[in-house]
Structure formats: C-alpha cells, structure tokens
C-alpha cells in the first residue's frame, strides 16, 4: 500500500514549522525536498571519501571515481539508455539545454529550422532563440490552445525537411499539461529532424524509457527528483553526441592538448569539462534508488489522486479559474482568482504555512497567451497528502476572504 506518511519520514524538512504553522510544501515543481539518504550521502562523502575524480591513482580518488560512475550507471538504468556513456552530467536542465543549443548553433545554417512551443520554460526557449540568432536558423513556435495543449495540427504543418531540431517539454511546468511525446517523436522522425525532450517536470513523475521512446535527447535536473541541487543530466544517442562539437573546454574533456591543436576525449568526458559537482552526483544515486524503490508509477498514481482531488475542490471556489485544463495533466495546478493578485494570495498562504509559487513560472509566453499577469501554482510530490490539500484549500478560501 502506497503510504505518503511512510515516505514523509525520510524527508526531514516536512516536519518543520513555518510561521508557527506546520509546513505544507506545495512548491515541488520549483524543487522537491530531499530524501534523508541523499543528505547523508553528501555528508558521508565529504567526511570519508572526498577526492577529485578521474586520473587519480590513490584510493580516495578511485573510490570517488567509482561512486561517481555508479550514479551514471544508475541514471542509465533509470532512463533505460543503451550505453552508460550516453549519460552526460551537467549542472541542471538549463545547462543541459544550453550545451545542446550551443553545439547545434555550430552546425545549423541559414534556412534550417528549430521548432519549440509557446509553453516552454524559458530554459527551453531562450537557448534556442540564442542558437538561432547565432546560426541564422529560423525558430518556429507551436502555439498552445486555450486548454493549454500543443496545437498539433500546427506542429504537423511546420515539420518539414528544413526542420533540424524539435525541442519540447514533456510536461509543462506552469500548466501541468502532459504532452503526447510518443506521437511527437514519431512525427519528428518521419523527417530527418532530431528531437530534444525537456523532462525537468517529468523525470520524477513519469516512467521513462528513452530507447522505447526513441528520443534523441532528453534532459532533467536532480533537484526536481528528490536529489541535490547543481546536478543535471543530458541523455543523447551515442551517434548524435559523437557528431556534435564539444561545449565547454577544459580538464577531462580532452584527449591531447598541444598549444595549437587539441583532440577531444571520448563520451561522456567530451562534454564534461572541469571538476563536476562530485558530491552532488554521488548523492543523486540515492534519489534514484528511492524513486525506484517506491516505483515512479506508484508515485504518479498517488499524485494523480491528489491532482483530481484538489482540482475538484478548487473548482468549487467562486471566482477561481484553473489555468491549464488539458485532459492529461501532471500534478501541477495553476489558478487565478478574479480581482485578486497571485502575489497577495501567496503572501497570505505563506503566513499560514503553505508554500506555493506565484508569478510567471519562467513561462512568460504562457502567461501572455492565457492573458494573465501570473498565476498561483500548487505542485505535488510523492509525499503530499490529502490532509495537506484540505488545509490548503481552506487557507486559499481564507486568503480570498481577506483580500476581497
């Protein structure tokens, strides 16, 4: 039996008080809380094992290297990549996307096209704007419908042999929409285009199989996956990663350096210049272990229950409208209350111990499209409970009353 109460025991922060109220943490789309084993692994690493990795012959260096590489192996299994070296460690989703956008900026040409959508997080929009700017390629943007779904007919129409890359989010962080990525990947591959899926909001909430999906690139952040901050993943098919020019230059990513000519190392090192976030990567494994122990499908099932429950309760509140009403949604609810500013609502909820996010959620085009200046967003994780939602809904009502 799935028990959020049992899970909560391993998340020490969930027991804290905020403003004299028990913390209700519903800002999980921004970052999740950390499992005790993740926290302990960081400490243990620094207290007993710390050393720089790769190339060292001494014991600690070997130990750190092994543990670092074990996380790569875990990530490989977690997403079912074909090869371990298809897993590149970055500092986060944003870093992963910028890596790819930079590399593509070196191979795209005038006339080439990149397709993104109107629902992208700025991290999956601005890098492509820059990439197209630098390479003179054209950026095409799939609009979204009123319910917050991709306009698939537009997408089909825009896909052409000019399309070189499609970069879309798996799950929208401001609307909750789950995009039909299987279909999108299939359509993309009917052309010669490659596809990147931004999985920042998906990796902790959807079962992943990059081989089955046949996705070319996929990325996510550890910190949204019960793991540490400062760690991200870029998965890419071996052949494509080999073909792309490197991103950052420096230690580890080279094979041979002479003053005027440098040859690059093999995957994954080619894309991992410099000392990485060693402690973070090593601790990240524990987050994956945790997710696999509970089962991401079980987590999703629980979150779906919360989503439906909260949606029904919120819909009962007068003047409250949910922004993002796609039939397939993940545990994210954005809403506005007419006449009330999200910022005021957030302030009062905070005073009552409820942590939600307010604003544009780094998706200004979505706000514009939906014709709102921002929203209040509640987002769930595997440890949230119905009781928390009941309390939150009461707090929202109270806040609306104060503010009306």
């Amino acid at each position, binding site marked *: 039996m799935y028990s959020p109460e049992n899970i909560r025991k391993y998340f020490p922060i969930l027991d804290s008080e905020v403003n004299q109220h028990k913390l209700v943490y519903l800002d999980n789309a921004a970052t999740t809380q950390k499992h005790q084993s993740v926290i302990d692994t960081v400490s243990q690493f620094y207290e007993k094992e710390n050393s720089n990795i790769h190339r060292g012959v001494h014991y600690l260096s070997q130990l750190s290297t092994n543990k670092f590489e074990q996380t790569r192996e875990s990530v490989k299994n977690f997403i079912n990549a074909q090869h371990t070296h298809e897993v590149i460690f970055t500092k986060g989703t944003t870093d992963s996307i910028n890596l790819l956008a930079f590399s593509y900026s070196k191979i795209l040409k005038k006339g080439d096209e990149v397709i993104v959508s109107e629902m992208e997080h700025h991290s999956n929009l601005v890098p492509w704007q820059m990439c197209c700017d630098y390479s003179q390629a054209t950026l095409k943007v799939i609009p979204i419908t009123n319910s917050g779904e991709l306009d698939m007919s537009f997408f089909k129409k825009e896909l052409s042999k000019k399309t070189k890359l499609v970069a879309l989010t798996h799950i929208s962080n401001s609307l909750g929409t789950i995009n039909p990525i299987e279909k999108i990947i299939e359509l993309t591959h009917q052309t010669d285009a490659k596809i990147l899926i931004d999985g920042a909001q998906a990796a902790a909430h959807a079962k992943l199989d990059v081989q089955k999906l046949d996705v070319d690139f996929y990325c996510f952040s550890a910190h949204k996956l019960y793991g540490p901050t400062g760690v991200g993943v870029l998965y890419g098919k071996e052949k494509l990663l080999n073909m792309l020019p490197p991103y950052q230059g420096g230690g580890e990513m080279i094979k041979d350096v002479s003053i005027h000519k440098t040859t690059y190392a093999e995957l994954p090192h080619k894309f991992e210049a410099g000392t990485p976030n060693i402690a973070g990567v090593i601790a990240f494994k524990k987050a994956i272990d945790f997710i696999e122990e509970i089962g991401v499908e079980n987590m999703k099932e629980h979150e779906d229950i919360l989503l439906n429950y909260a949606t029904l309760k919120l819909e009962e509140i007068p003047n409250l409208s949910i922004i993002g009403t796609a039939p397939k949604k993940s545990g994210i609810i954005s809403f506005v209350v007419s006449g009330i*500013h999200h910022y005021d609502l957030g302030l*009062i909820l905070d005073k009552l111990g409820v942590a939600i996010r307010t*604003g544009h959620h780094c998706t200004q085009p979505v706000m514009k499209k939906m014709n709102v200046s921002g929203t209040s967003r509640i987002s769930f994780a595997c440890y949230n409970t119905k009781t928390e939602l009941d309390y939150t809904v009461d707090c929202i009502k109270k806040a609306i009353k*104060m503010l009306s």
Partner: protein
Amino acid sequence: MQDSIENIGEEIVDEFNMFENWIDKYDYLIDLGKSLPKIDEKYKVEDNIITGCQSQVWLHAKQEDNKVVFIADSDAIMTKGIIAMLIRVLSGQKAEKIINTNLDFINKIGLNEQLSQTRANGLNSMIKQMKIYALAFKDK
C-alpha cells in the same frame, strides 16, 4: 500645516502596534491599499514602473506649491498598502525633507521581517525611487 515625516511615521508605528497578530496587520495594509485613490491610466507606463518588486508598482511624482506629491498604484493590494503608507508619510513634503529624513519608522513596524527579503527589496526600491524624484525636483 503638513505634519513632519517623523510625526506621521510615529503615528503609523502606533497604529501598527495596536495589532497583535499578522492577520490584523495584513488587514490594515489591505485597507490602506484599498484607500489609495485610483490613478489615471496614463501614469501606468513603463517609465513609472519600479523594478525590483514582485508585483507591478507604478510611481509618479509632481511638484505642487514647492511640495512633492506622489501618486502610485500596484496590481497587488499588499504592495498598494505599503506604498499607500509611504505616500501618507512622504507625499506633500518638501523635497529636501524627503531626501534627508531618516525613515526609521519602517524598522519599528517590523515590516522588514514581516515582508521578507524580496519584499523588503521592493520596499527599498520604492523608497529609493521616491528619493530620486525628490532629488530631481530639488535640483530644479
């Protein structure tokens, strides 16, 4: 005669101290916000926006009888309450005074803690902008 900045500040501190809990303080700010006169749409322009606030704040100033008069608006009511409070203290004062008076009362209200860093930044941005207006008028 217009009360001094210090006096009005003290008044506000006294009013705030009457409230025992945050709910009442927030209610008070909300009421202050609601009491702020509506402003003409023509003032809600890019140039009048104060950056550094989490909600939009428009602030405009004019000089009348050698005094600086502020008008402002915000899309968030709490922010409006704060700016209403600042206007109550600073609007109608001499530019010189606005520039030089110590705004101690803000610390006494404990707004900084009440409001947390980002919001305190917003508050500071507002005050800074008001002083900049005052400076501009003084130099004329």
